[in-house]
């Protein structure tokens, strides 16, 4: 392997990481909540789960009208059908999840001690398929997104409760890696997630108002008008990467799963309100 200055710098930074202040997800979450509530005292906490519609009255009105006939309804119906379809071996998704897969989304993602990685709901869906002799589904749209939409629907109103256990090796590192990703500038435009969703939250970027990271994880998967279909959170991560002119990571890559872990922890205490519709 070629030893380059940048690799040396990354190695030094990695070695210094444990020496930095000890990771404290709960302190991070409280500080993030505090930073937004001080900036936007007029917005009720649970409203952050509605993203830009908490900030933009005109957009909110249009969104509420759409909620009369939600565009994600078809995905929920299809997702329920897929969910209840038996695999070739006679088993089904209900056999893979606690409580038969109903009302469980608030516990995802979680750090699996045995697998030594973050497991998202979408990863768990495909792991269920593979464990039962089925081929995995594409990650970002279609059947998997529909199943995720159905499971999100059955979990609506449940309170996000993601854990980063200190006694599980790797969990805190995964959380910290997700946090690092969130704050790291990337792409030719040199933006971090935080550049838009923390620093510039509530402000306009071209025609759109930027949502806060608080509440980001509550409402996925999402029917985005620009997609014309329902899509997953990692699809949005990829899109954001592309928008800042970075090569996107693969959906359900370790980097994106760690990012989802961090982001969802930040929304602990919020009620799930997915699936949702967005512009």
């Amino acid at each position: 392997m070629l030893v380059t200055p940048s690799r040396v710098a990354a190695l030094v930074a990695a070695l210094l990481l444990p020496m930095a202040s000890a990771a404290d997800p709960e302190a991070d979450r409280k500080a993030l909540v505090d930073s937004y509530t001080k900036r936007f005292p007029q917005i009720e906490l649970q409203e952050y789960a509605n993203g830009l519609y908490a900030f933009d009255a005109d957009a909110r009105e249009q969104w509420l009208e759409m909620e009369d006939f939600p565009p994600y309804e078809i995905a929920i119906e299809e997702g329920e059908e897929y969910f209840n379809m038996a695999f070739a071996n006679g088993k089904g998704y209900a056999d893979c999840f606690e409580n038969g897969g109903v009302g469980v989304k608030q516990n995802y993602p979680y750090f699996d001690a045995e697998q030594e990685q973050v497991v998202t709901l979408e990863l768990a869906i495909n792991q269920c398929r593979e464990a039962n002799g089925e081929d995995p589904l594409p990650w970002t749209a279609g059947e998997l997104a529909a199943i995720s939409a159905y499971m999100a629907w059955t979990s609506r109103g449940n309170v996000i409760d993601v854990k980063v256990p200190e006694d599980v090796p790797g969990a805190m590192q995964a959380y910290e890696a997700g946090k690092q990703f969130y704050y790291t500038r990337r792409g030719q435009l040199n933006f971090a997630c935080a550049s838009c969703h923390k620093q510039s939250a509530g402000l306009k970027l071209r025609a759109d108002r930027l949502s806060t990271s608080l509440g980001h994880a509550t409402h996925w998967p999402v029917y985005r008008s620009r997609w014309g279909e329902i899509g997953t959170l990692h699809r949005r991560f990829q899109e954001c990467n592309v928008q800042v002119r970075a090569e996107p990571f693969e959906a359900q890559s370790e980097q994106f799963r760690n990012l989802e872990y961090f982001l969802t922890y930040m929304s602990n205490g919020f009620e799930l309100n997915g699936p949702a519709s967005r512009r």
Partner: protein
Amino acid sequence: MRIRLLIPALAIIGLLSGCAATGPDMTTYPGAVEAAQQKQAEARELGHAWNTFEPLLRQAAAANDAGDEEEAIRLANEARLHAELAIEQASEEAGAWRERASF
């Protein structure tokens, strides 16, 4: 005596010319592309590759196909520059993100 000095001298010359000869020749189109791809591979390994790289390389290939080698080399070297900037970004961000993460 002269022969005894010649062998180590030749070895030194060989080493020096070997050092000068490493790395692709960026004054040629294939060399410029190879150099660019090496840098992009490094940027990808660091998780910081830019998506501006591939379009530039495609434009370089198109220029080369059209017989404009000078433009092809220029574009391939520009792609290499994007990859080098991405590597520099990775290096800076390895420490800088933490300052941004303070509340």
